[in-house]
């Protein structure tokens, strides 16, 4: 097993090198660059920018160096923990990410918990009470949940939150707590705001989980080993948890690692609609302004997390299912 993990980690190196080249190449593809967008911005503000200033900016970010040199400078920065500099926001990428990482992870993890706490029990219940009135009810709700675009749900909930609970629209804090040091009052205020992104981002996932859990469990419930266990005299609830549920959750475990990049970035569209201080909207704006180092580095971090997450999934599945061996 140790051998397997080491080998997988080794294989990650060429994978990530290939991804980094592709990312760098793709970011360079559209015409223009970050300086062009920056200039457009400055012009819009009515500022006069001289040729010399532009040249200075270009020189500062080495934009006129040959492509391979630029790539090499960018990539070797990673090894020193330096993810480059955002040209548009005029801050190091590290600082931008660091500022948003905490809330991004907080929102993402509360979404995952929301999804699991609601999704698993309902899926389980729907399966063991297949075709009952409650199964049909949950099915209808689940399909509605899957079919509703989450930005629409976000707008709806923001309206309700404002109308009936008096919460300010968007963001994670009320204006009076903005920039305040953390206190109990601020924490309560955070909880008041957190539920909206939690429900919005979690809704589709929860609905999907209900359907998948129901289907997986129904498949397992009619397997011969369930009949065997019944014939042994195992009590029905204990039986369902020990055998079919145990096997029905394998597909979830095998995708658990894919949540890593999602936890890192959060949902971009919902982040924009709800004005959340997360990384998703940061990525979106960096792509729109061609902020190459910011966009490239964010995508690179997410790719690394995806590769790492896949390894974690594989290991988790091996731990759970004895039929899987990585020797």
């Amino acid at each position, binding site marked *: 097993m140790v051998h397997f993990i080491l080998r997988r980690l080794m294989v990650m190196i060429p994978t990530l090198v290939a991804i980094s080249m592709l990312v760098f190449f793709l970011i360079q593809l559209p015409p223009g660059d970050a300086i062009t967008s920056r200039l457009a911005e400055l012009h819009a503000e009515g500022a006069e920018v001289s040729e010399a200033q532009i040249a200075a900016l270009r020189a500062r970010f080495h934009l006129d160096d040959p492509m391979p040199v630029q790539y090499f400078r960018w990539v070797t920065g990673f090894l020193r923990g330096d993810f480059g500099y955002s040209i548009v926001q005029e801050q190091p990428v590290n600082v931008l990410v660091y500022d948003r990482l905490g809330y991004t992870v907080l929102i993402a993890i509360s979404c995952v918990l929301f999804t699991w706490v609601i999704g698993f029990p309902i899926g389980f219940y729907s399966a063991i009470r297949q075709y009952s009135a409650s199964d049909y009810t949950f099915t209808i709700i689940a399909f509605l949940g899957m079919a509703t675009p989450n930005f629409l749900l976000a707008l709806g909930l923001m309206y309700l939150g404002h109308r009936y609970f008096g919460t300010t629209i968007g963001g994670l804090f009320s204006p009076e707590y903005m920039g305040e040091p953390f206190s109990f009052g601020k924490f309560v205020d955070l909880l008041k705001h957190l539920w909206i992104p939690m429900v919005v981002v979690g809704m589709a996932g929860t609905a999907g989980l209900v359907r998948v859990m129901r289907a997986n469990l129904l498949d397992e419930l009619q397997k*011969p*080993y369930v009949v065997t266990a019944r014939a042994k*005299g*195992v009590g029905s609830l204990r039986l369902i948890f*020990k055998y079919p549920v145990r*096997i029905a959750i394998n597909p979830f475990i095998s995708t658990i690692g894919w949540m890593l990049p999602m936890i890192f970035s959060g949902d971009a569209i919902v982040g924009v609609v709800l004005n959340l201080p997360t990384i998703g909207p940061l990525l979106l704006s960096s792509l729109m302004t061609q902020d190459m180092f910011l966009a490239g580095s964010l995508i690179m971090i997410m790719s690394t997390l995806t590769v790492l997450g896949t390894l974690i999934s594989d290991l988790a599945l091996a731990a759970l299912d004895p*039929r899987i061996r990585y020797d």
Partner: protein
Amino acid sequence: MKEENIVEVEDLFIRFYRDEGVIKPLNGVSLSIPSGKSVGVVGESGCGKTMTAYALLRILPRGGEIVRGALRFKRKNGETIDLAQLDEKGKTIRQIRGGEIAMIFQEPMTAFSPVHTLYNQISEVLRIHSDMDEEAIRKRVVDLLGHVGIPDPEQRADAYPFEFSGGMRQRAMIAMALASNPRLLIADEPTTALDVTVQAQVLRLIKKIQKEFNLSLMLITHDLGVIAHMVDYVYVMYMGEVVEAAPVGELFENPKHPYTIDLLHSIPKMTGPREELAHIEGTVPHSAALPPGCMFHPRCRKRVGKTCWTREPGMTDLGDGHYVRCFIHSPAESGISRESEDLTYA
């Protein structure tokens, strides 16, 4: 209930009420299993063999109901109870399942959970049905595995089902069934999924443990060759009814029901001139739409006339424990027209 019997099934009807209609897998099955003897139940797929076994354990698939009949069973403590009257989720039936009636299944591959060790699954029987401590359970499981012929049982007990061959898995299944000293063993097509070379070994093992543990055996199979060597008495089933019952020798030498005769003809012969393999015309009708009259009449080559599709034949006693359900062997007046239509045709 007769003194010598451990199980008496009487006039058992099972119905599944589904959206697409009522499925009728059992239509008045009666059979009995004497203590310490082995009884075979033969018939094509879908004739209700397995449903009869599931009914005994009260583990019918979802939606299945016993709508009429009795399932008398003599318990270890000598008490006779009607299993059909028990609560399917109650304590009594759970004590009987695995504790007094054990079952082994057709597919040893899928009948074990793939993600639990053999030890985990076999010891579960003892955890439910005995108050042994962990050490005693361990010893008993290892002994059982050794007894059914699994080499190196101490180590192999902790292996997973997929690490065994089909034959070895079926041996482990037998060990699991024996764990809590049941009185009745139901073997549902125990060798159908196995290689021919392994089939004989597993059958010998079942026969051996039946003698050793003084078990009553109900052997369910579609394979008449298996029946011949394994059991004392045979029930032939067709569409949820017993159509013929006889001691095993009598059945092979002197079959009476046209269905039994056709079944025996369809066994391939290894000797004699090559000829086309006999088969039974037509297919088994769907058990949602039972044919009127004798269930077998649409496929029968010896129909005697209108009686066959207007009246239902009853069981005729031919003497010496040989019974047959056919108008050839009984006067037409003996036929039954079922009084409760809802149970037979809908």
